[in-house]
């Protein structure tokens, strides 16, 4: 009996005497106590939560060297290994976790779209369901501030820059010919189909040192890593047909898309003001193959081929019969990229892109054949030293070979150039705290053609001023070789350059975003020539210069009105430049002082429909009236367009889509063309250049066949 009691007591006592007390206090970087933080010894059951004053105390039976863990939501987890006897009355300072949504982001100049972004200006569906965008991602981006609406062109014009000042990259690799060719005064479309991408970053200035050869802007597209399922997609549209199929295997997947567009029936029904001999006919095919390697490696190979043919006669004030323009374009684009995570927090991204573009142009009696072969090779490494310090560096090579053959009844010549550029970049991201972060980069570029080396520093800084607001600043220097139109005739150039200064304020709260950004951009070494057009015989130099300054405002609200989302953009632009053959400083004819757009989308549950509207306004653009003298001094009338679209989900897999651009049929003016010679009254006659058609209708039926009965092509519209 006694023995039993003794035994029991020993067991109880042995439990008691090996206990030690762990105690202390947990504070944040400001020294304020953190309540409710979890503190425990790793690998044991011993632990507790901190009380209101940040203190904690608990007992443990563990002995010797132990690891104390302290964690709290939105702080970095802390760990300390020490002998248990020493782990009392200690003070632990937790660092803010900088990877949370409410941490500061270095974002001056940048808009993000997609679901992986911290602040999303455009959601994935917006890219394709914005009225007037007609399924072209470029169209959707034109509703963001900083862009100028140039209705007859269709490309991106950013902050007083020409369209060629914006470069487009897919998975880090350059897209050399991103736009489909089109006739004069007819807007072009992006070649890439929007449903291939999961994230879009649109930078209107001050962008990362990883990107170069763009004076104004970069558009970065990330393709999807893995399609969700096998499916077949059929599209029947007023303008053509489309067919797509996706196959999935254990580690790989293949998506194929083909499209056939023929505008003949449409032109028959709704003739426009051009005389079409052969309306636009295009055949295109795209394939994406993705392969996942054992660990985290991912290989993506994207290939696209398209052919576009058309032939038309367009009115011209100086040519009674009009100008005949015919085009046969063949374009092949291949983009392969590989990314992988290596040991010790290193990662690698490498890739190669290649484009072959061949255009046969008939311009009245001249035949022009342009062949462009371009390639981009790149390798970049990233090292995560900690969540607060990252380093990114790499090197890349761009090669372009361009040849042109010009032939008419009395003249024939060939032009050719190689434009190869070698560049390297290094950039670091530093978070000083949850409130203050910076990105510092440097890029060096050597152009073999211009025999010139340029160094461009980039710097941005962001400070979080309140729970929902932040300020950011960016500065950068940017270089770009002169465009093909000049390089084919002359190579004695220096690179054109810009310097950006950007200040940004952003307020984000509960599905509402407000953004205001002021910028100043200085242009230097712009190409000038001394003839009405760039000709082989012109004299060229780099004496041009200019500036652009302005204010961009963006407001998006997904909250105030139920089932309705809307966003508004306003851009103010003041720009002048002296370049090309300008006799003086002037505002270029593609820049408008005020640009505004409003996009509204409403989901109507009872009709299973989404109704969308967009309204675009831009103030009049400059033109030259030779009757008044002066250069680009007159202002044309403003541009207004109200667009509507309607998507009806017949069943989860069948969608009917109707879209009308410029519903009100506003008579817009794209510009004026003046006669070369005066009439009998001594005046120059003029012709108003109007859009080819006031309205554009689009009706499509989209059908998805898959095992999953809920998937549809909403993302395809």
């Amino acid at each position, binding site marked *: 009996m006694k023995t039993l009691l003794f035994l029991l007591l020993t067991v109880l006592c042995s439990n008691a005497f090996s206990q030690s007390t762990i105690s202390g206090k947990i504070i944040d970087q400001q020294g304020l106590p953190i309540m409710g933080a979890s503190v*425990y010894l790793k690998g044991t059951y011993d632990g507790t939560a901190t009380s209101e004053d940040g203190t904690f105390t608990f007992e443990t039976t563990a002995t010797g060297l132990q690891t104390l863990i302290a964690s709290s939501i939105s702080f970095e987890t802390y760990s300390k290994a020490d002998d248990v006897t020493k782990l009392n009355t200690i003070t632990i300072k937790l660092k803010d976790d900088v990877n949370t*949504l409410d941490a500061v982001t270095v974002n001056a100049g940048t808009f993000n779209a997609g679901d992986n972004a911290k602040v999303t200006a455009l959601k*994935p569906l917006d890219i394709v369901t914005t009225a007037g965008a007609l399924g072209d991602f470029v169209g959707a981006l034109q509703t963001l501030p900083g862009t100028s609406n140039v209705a007859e062109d269709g490309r991106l014009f950013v902050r007083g820059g020409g369209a060629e000042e914006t470069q487009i990259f897919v998975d880090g690799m350059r897209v050399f010919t991103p736009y489909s060719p089109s006739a004069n005064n007819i807007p072009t479309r992006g070649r890439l189909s929007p449903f291939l991408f999961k994230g879009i970053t649109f930078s209107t200035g001050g962008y990362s040192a990883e990107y170069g050869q763009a004076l104004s802007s970069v558009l970065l597209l990330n393709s999807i890593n893995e399609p969700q399922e096998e499916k077949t997609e059929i599209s029947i549209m007023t303008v053509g047909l489309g067919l797509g199929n996706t196959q999935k295997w254990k580690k790989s997947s293949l998506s194929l898309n083909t499209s056939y567009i023929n505008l003949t029936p449409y032109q028959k029904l709704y003739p426009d003001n051009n005389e079409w001999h052969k309306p636009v006919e295009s055949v295109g095919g795209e394939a994406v193959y993705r392969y996942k390697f054992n660990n985290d490696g991912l290989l993506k190979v994207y290939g696209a081929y398209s052919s576009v043919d058309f032939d038309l006669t367009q009115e011209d004030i100086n040519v009674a019969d009009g100008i005949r323009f015919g085009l046969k374009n063949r374009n092949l684009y291949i983009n392969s990229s590989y990314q992988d995570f290596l040991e010790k927090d290193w990662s690698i991204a490498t890739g190669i892109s290649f484009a072959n573009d061949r255009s046969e142009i008939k311009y009245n009696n001249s035949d022009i054949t342009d062949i462009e072969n371009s390639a981009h090779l790149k390798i970049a490494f990233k090292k995560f030293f900690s969540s607060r310090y990252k380093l990114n560096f790499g090197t890349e090579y761009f090669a372009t070979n361009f040849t042109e053959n010009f032939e008419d009844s009395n003249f024939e010549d060939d032009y050719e150039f190689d434009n190869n550029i070698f560049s390297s970049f290094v950039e670091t991201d530093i978070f000083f705290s949850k409130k203050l972060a910076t990105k510092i980069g440097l890029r060096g570029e050597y152009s073999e053609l211009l025999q010139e080396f340029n160094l461009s520093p980039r710097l941005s800084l962001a400070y979080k001023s309140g729970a929902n607001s932040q300020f950011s600043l960016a500065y950068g220097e940017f270089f770009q070789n002169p465009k093909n139109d000049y390089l084919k005739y002359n190579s004695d150039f220096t690179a054109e350059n810009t310097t950006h200064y950007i200040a940004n304020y952003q307020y984000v709260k509960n599905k509402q975003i407000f953004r205001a950004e002021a910028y100043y951009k200085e242009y230097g070494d712009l190409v000038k020539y001394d003839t009405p057009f760039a000709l082989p015989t012109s004299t060229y130099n780099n004496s041009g210069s200019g500036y652009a300054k302005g204010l961009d405002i963006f407001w998006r609200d997904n909250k105030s009105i139920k089932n309705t989302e809307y966003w508004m953009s306003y851009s103010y632009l003041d720009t002048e430049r002296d370049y090309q053959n300008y006799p003086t400083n002037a505002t270029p004819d593609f820049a408008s002082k005020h640009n505004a757009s409003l996009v509204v989308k409403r989901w109507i549950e009872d009709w*299973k429909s989404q109704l969308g509207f967009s309204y675009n306004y831009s103030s009049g653009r400059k033109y030259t009236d030779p009757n008044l003298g002066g250069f680009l001094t007159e202002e044309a009338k403003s541009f207004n367009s109200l667009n509507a679209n309607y998507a009806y989900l017949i069943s989860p897999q069948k969608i009917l889509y109707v879209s009308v651009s410029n519903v009100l049929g506003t008579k817009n003016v794209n510009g004026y063309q003046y006669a070369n010679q005066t009439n009998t009254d001594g005046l120059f006659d003029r012709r108003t250049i109007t859009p080819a058609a006031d309205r554009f209708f689009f009706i499509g039926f989209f059908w998805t066949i898959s095992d999953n009965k809920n998937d549809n092509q909403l993302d395809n519209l």
Partner: protein
Amino acid sequence: MKTVLLIATFIFTLSLSAQTPYEKGMNEAFALWEQQKNTEAVQLFERIASAETDNWLPPYYAGLIEIVSSFGLKDEALLNTKLTRAKEFLDNASEISENNPEIMITYALLNTAYIAFDGAKYGMTLSGENVAIYQKALAIAPSNPRVLLGKTEWDMGAAKFFGKSIAPYCEDVERAIVLFNEEEQTIPYYPYSGLERASEISANCKKETSPN
């Protein structure tokens, strides 16, 4: 005699309280969860997970509570922080127990929390992912009632949205109820729950599909 009784009682109480630390911890964590002390429950499950490195249940529950308690949040930053943490717990659990259908469907629940917060932002990518998760889980465990119920609820939501009949899915709910009742509950702390939810849905089915 008295002493013997006393000692016997003493020993009896001792053996009653002679739970393993695991059982003690789990019971306490479930009690905290029941009292809606979610943060404390998550913290305790996290501690248990740190001690029981080859048991998927503690990190699974830590993740599950984070997910369940993030429904209805209005602050996207907090939602993201909680769900990121939940994902870490689930990743930890599935490292211990690969291709576990219970963990897989909890990932689907995590996606649903994002979709419920903002369908336009997260729906396009995550809803497809969910369908794939349910298909894969069902292929692995065709007679797991929770997998069947989860998939059926997801499909029902879509059918209701398009004004389609939910009748075919109601049959699956009944099948899930049968599976729930047949299920042998042998593993302690295993997430066997779900029968109540199935019965609720079944009752709804009968209401909606009844001829009057």
